[in-house]
């Protein structure tokens, strides 16, 4: 770490601060991958169901929002965690 500071010509605290910011970005970015794919699958299948059976659209929409809510929770945990990551 000492050597890195000399090489980058930085104050000691700056490196840790920058790495924390990078860590925050990675925490949220990584947490968003899975839910992103998951919400895509949920909504895609809901649209297929609605197109096949438009009379069931109301029920499908309710269930779709439920599925989105459960999937999305993981991404939001990551969002909150990115603030908690010690800075």
């Amino acid at each position, binding site marked *: 770490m000492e050597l890195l500071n000399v090489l980058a010509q930085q104050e000691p605290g700056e490196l840790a601060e920058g790495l924390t910011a990078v860590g925050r970005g990675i925490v949220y970015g990584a947490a968003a991958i899975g839910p992103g794919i998951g919400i895509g699958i949920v909504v895609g299948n809901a649209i297929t169901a609605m197109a096949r059976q438009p009379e069931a659209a109301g029920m499908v929409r309710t269930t779709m929002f439920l599925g989105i809510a459960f999937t999305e929770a993981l991404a939001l945990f990551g969002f*909150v965690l990115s603030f908690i990551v010690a800075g």
Partner: protein
Amino acid sequence: MPAMSALALEFPPVSHVTEWPSIFGGEGPLAVNKVVILMWISVALVFGFFFVAARRGKLVPTGIQNFAESIWDFVRDGVVMQTMGPEGLKFMPLLVMMFCFIVVTNIWEVIPVAQMPVNGRIALPAFMAVLVWVIFNVMGFARQGFGYLKSVLFPPGVPKALYILVTPIEFVSTFIVRPLSLSVRLFANMLAGHLLLVSFITITAALFTVGPGLVIWPFSFALLVGLTAFEVLVAVLQAFIFTILTAVYIAGAMHPEH
């Protein structure tokens, strides 16, 4: 967290846009700040709205009573009937109040002067999640007695040996992750929306100076207006999701899984 700067724009740190000074000079957890004032106004608005709507109940509703009844119908047809069935109708007062209160507390996000969602701080979502947790557990024990714990922790149809794995997972997901995710979902959505609007307001304000920035200023402003409309959608959608999850949790506790 220090102020971040990108492209020579100074973004305020998160604490500057979510932490408000105490108004009446109080200290600690009982201090009254802008968020608390907005919450009180929301309580008064929701109470006043339904009080006025129900004061002169008419068979053929007009005006404000019509609006209140359309909200009631929306919650009954869109939430209760889809998840709990007719026996969930006795939870209608709880669910309608919850829906209206969350919509009003969320919508402060886009109201000028206020510009702060009450649910952007975790206190109110956490309290409501604890309330839901207590209600669905009480309903479970009231309906099924101690069979409730058995039906939650030992779901039928699972091979005996797998209970070593299934029981801890079910315990954590039902009694710990449910209230946690319920509160964090609402809180994080509103906080994220708030930060998004703050970021675009900062960018739009910073570009509004004579210079090269003025060329792209209209695009930034148009996106800000679009995002404001999107946040109105998110405010109502999150209230709907919170209400429907409450209904699902209560319905799940009242009926054993089979």
